[in-house]
């Protein structure tokens, strides 16, 4: 066996182990360990991605001495490796970009606790990506939920407490439904391993037994994961959680946490239930309707918002709507478009959050649009970052958002009877996106006749780090937008190994 095949296991264990070690470290060391660990994990995942892209196919890695249905195992294909690499790169950039804000907003003696949360979050995301076992997935969903709550309330203000409680309740409802679904699935199939469940479900579907429990189970799992990833009617927890938490948390939550659950859902659709059985339940149509509604309502709420962070948060609802709409189109290209949208939105939304904080910092820490006038001149790199992010969100060519919208339109035309609503809503949604993002861009590039003075604690070193992360984000966006074909090929190949 090639040594490279150990890499998924190394990355999961490395991130968990550094979380454990961080509990003993002082603040500075915790920061360094976190940055080094995430960089190592991203390098490992990138190497694995290149290796798997070259060799093709996928492999199973035993976690222990016992083969699959008896012991635990993880599975890595090119799609999983790409997701892991993407998640770790975005997490690295988000954490680095938020260092300065973390110093300002979080108590000194809680910094290393924050890095523990980040490490554990990364490990849970990696495990959700690589797992081949539903119960392992559930265990890491728990870690994910708890650390996300901690990341929201680390700022310790009234608003974040309320947001964290709301997130916790909604997210636990989601976890509970997921757990119910998994246990019923175990009851009717007798397995927890994804490929074995799929084999059993094929038999069950052929025999016609357990038709009702199967339908209920799939519905419960889908609703649970939809709540956790903020699909339209279940999005109530989202604006406060993203709007008031410290900026790294907002970036990580919006671009990674909800995406981890969506990726788990994709795995469940393809590897647990099987696409045909899933299609028969008709849930895809529900996803389609909710996705379309979310695209419109999220954007409308974002237009009415007068707080830049909450505006970006509401835009997330619209973007998650795109992903579910792609599921709902019920064809291969729609699914590929959704997966690309995960990448595009992850790269863009974290960029927007980090850029927004740079803009508000030079506007007297106010998030109101009136105070942001001319902020793009006061903090140039943040202004450019926000502009790039906005262009990508609206779907201007060369940026990542364009590719996903193009793919959605293509998938919509190829779908059966869903072409008109898809295209119409897509057009409306793009126009709405343009309204609120261009409004902000025009606002930040309108010269203001009054000046805010930078606060005293602005240091060149922190600003340098901020600038580098900004450039990193912009580079990721441009790579996804201009060189999308290799990624699309990998998504296609990865989905091929799923079924």
């Amino acid at each position: 066996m090639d040594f490279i095949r150990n890499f998924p296991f190394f990355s999961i264990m490395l991130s968990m182990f550094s979380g454990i070690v961080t509990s003993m470290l002082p603040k500075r060391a915790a920061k360094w360990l976190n940055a080094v660990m995430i960089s190592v994990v991203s390098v490992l995942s990138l190497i694995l991605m290149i290796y798997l892209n070259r060799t093709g196919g996928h492999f199973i890695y035993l976690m222990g001495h016992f083969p699959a249905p008896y012991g635990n195992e993880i599975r890595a294909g090119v799609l999983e490796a790409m997701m892991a690499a993407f998640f770790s790169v975005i997490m690295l950039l988000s954490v680095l970009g938020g260092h300065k804000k973390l110093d300002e907003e979080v108590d000194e003696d809680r910094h290393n606790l924050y890095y523990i949360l980040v490490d554990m979050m990364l490990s849970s995301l990696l495990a959700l990506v690589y797992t081949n076992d539903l119960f392992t997935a559930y265990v890491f969903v728990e870690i994910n939920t708890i650390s996300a709550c901690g990341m929201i309330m680390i700022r310790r203000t009234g608003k974040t407490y309320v947001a964290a409680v709301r997130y916790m309740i909604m997210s636990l409802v989601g976890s509970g439904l997921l757990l119910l679904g998994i246990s019923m699935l175990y009851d009717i199939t007798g397995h927890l391993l994804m490929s074995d469940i799929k084999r059993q479900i094929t038999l069950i579907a052929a025999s016609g037994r357990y038709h009702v429990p199967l339908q209920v189970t799939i519905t419960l799992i889908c609703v649970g994961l939809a709540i956790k990833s903020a699909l339209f009617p279940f999005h109530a927890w989202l604006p406060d959680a993203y709007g008031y938490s410290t900026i790294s948390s907002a970036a990580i939550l919006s671009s990674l946490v909800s995406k981890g659950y969506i990726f788990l859902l994709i795995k469940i659709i393809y590897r647990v239930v099987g696409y045909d059985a899933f299609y028969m339940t008709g849930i895809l149509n529900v996803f389609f309707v909710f996705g379309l509604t979310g695209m419109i309502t999220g954007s409308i709420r974002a237009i009415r918002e007068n707080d830049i962070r909450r505006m970006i948060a509401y835009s997330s609802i619209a973007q998650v709507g795109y992903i579910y709409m792609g599921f709902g189109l019920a064809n291969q290209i729609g699914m590929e478009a959704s997966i690309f949208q995960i990448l595009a939105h992850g790269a863009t939304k974290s960029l927007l959050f980090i850029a927004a904080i740079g803009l508000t910092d030079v506007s007297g820490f106010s998030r109101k649009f009136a105070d942001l006038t001319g902020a793009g001149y006061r903090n140039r790199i943040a202004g450019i970052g926000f502009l790039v992010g906005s262009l990508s969100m609206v779907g201007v060519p060369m940026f990542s958002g364009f590719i996903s919208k193009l793919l959605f339109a293509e998938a919509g035309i190829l779908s059966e009877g869903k072409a008109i609503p898809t295209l119409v809503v897509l057009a409306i949604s793009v126009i709405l996106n343009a309204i609120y993002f261009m409004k902000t861009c025009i606002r930040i590039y309108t010269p203001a006749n009054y000046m805010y003075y930078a606060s005293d604690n602005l240091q060149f070193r922190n600003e340098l780090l901020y600038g580098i992360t900004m450039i990193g984000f912009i580079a990721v966006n441009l790579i996804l937008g201009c060189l999308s074909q290799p990624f699309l090929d990998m998504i296609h190949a990865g989905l091929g190994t799923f079924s």
Partner: protein
Amino acid sequence: MSRKKSDEIYRKSFSYHFFRWLRDEEDPYIGKVEMSVKKPHLEEVETIRERMSEKQMMMDRIYDLSNNRMLLRFRQVYKVLAILFCVTLLGVLIVNVSYLPPIGDPDNPADNEVPTRYIEQGLQETGAINIVSGMILDYRAFDTFGESNVLFIATITVLILLRIDSTLKKKDPKKYERETNDRKFEPKNDLILQGGARVLTPVILIWGACVILNGHLSPGGGFSGGAIIGAGLILYLNAFGFVKTERFFVEKTYKYVSFTALTFYCLAKSYSFFTGANHLESHIPKGEPGAILSAGLILPLDICVGFVVACTMYTFYCMFRKGDF
């Protein structure tokens, strides 16, 4: 050869009190066990006023129901919808349960090759007589590692939420005073509780240790034994107060114990996963089934999990009680 004790010494001895109690001349409880009247809890006027104004502000500005028709209507609709939703979910689940396989049927899908192998070859493959321990700490050790990290991360989150800021004493003494004023009533010195705890705590702790150490031989293991030890510590804390427990359990203790336990778990299992996946030979002896030192890694891992669970429980209690160890 007995020597007559002086009357003074005799009056202090146990037998003097015992025979007086037997003759009904003395009641050991009178005047000793009865609760003294607690001093009323005096709150500063300022804190009362602050609390009242906060509450008022909440009613006035956030839930301004008299002027906010929409909120009022939302609340009514919310109640109706919530009940409807719950009833529907309940109905769907109840209907669903009737379609599930019946309990105890030998043809159930869950009775497949997986439990059969656990039961038939579990002892041979893991060396543990307790199949459950063998299952969670050897076959599916990765899940259990995740599960103990769930406990770890939950403690971290509670620390974030409830730990009293270490710099608060200097920065804002008044707030520090307010946050720590519940400690004034420590310890309660309740005789019955203390007497009970004095007898029970050692038994509980030893029992917990026994459950952990025999996790691979008999029902029990790290999670249940750790919960027992945690409960024993909480009982001791309630009886004797923080002054006594701080002698052996402070925040540093939590940090070191959980760090050591989880690090050992992580490294040991990484070795086992790595050798397993690469088909290398694992040099961990299985031992003789039934002996206390057997079953390979299961016993040390049980001890680790036990420590993590006990520390988590105790830390939760301390944090919810007063935000400090």
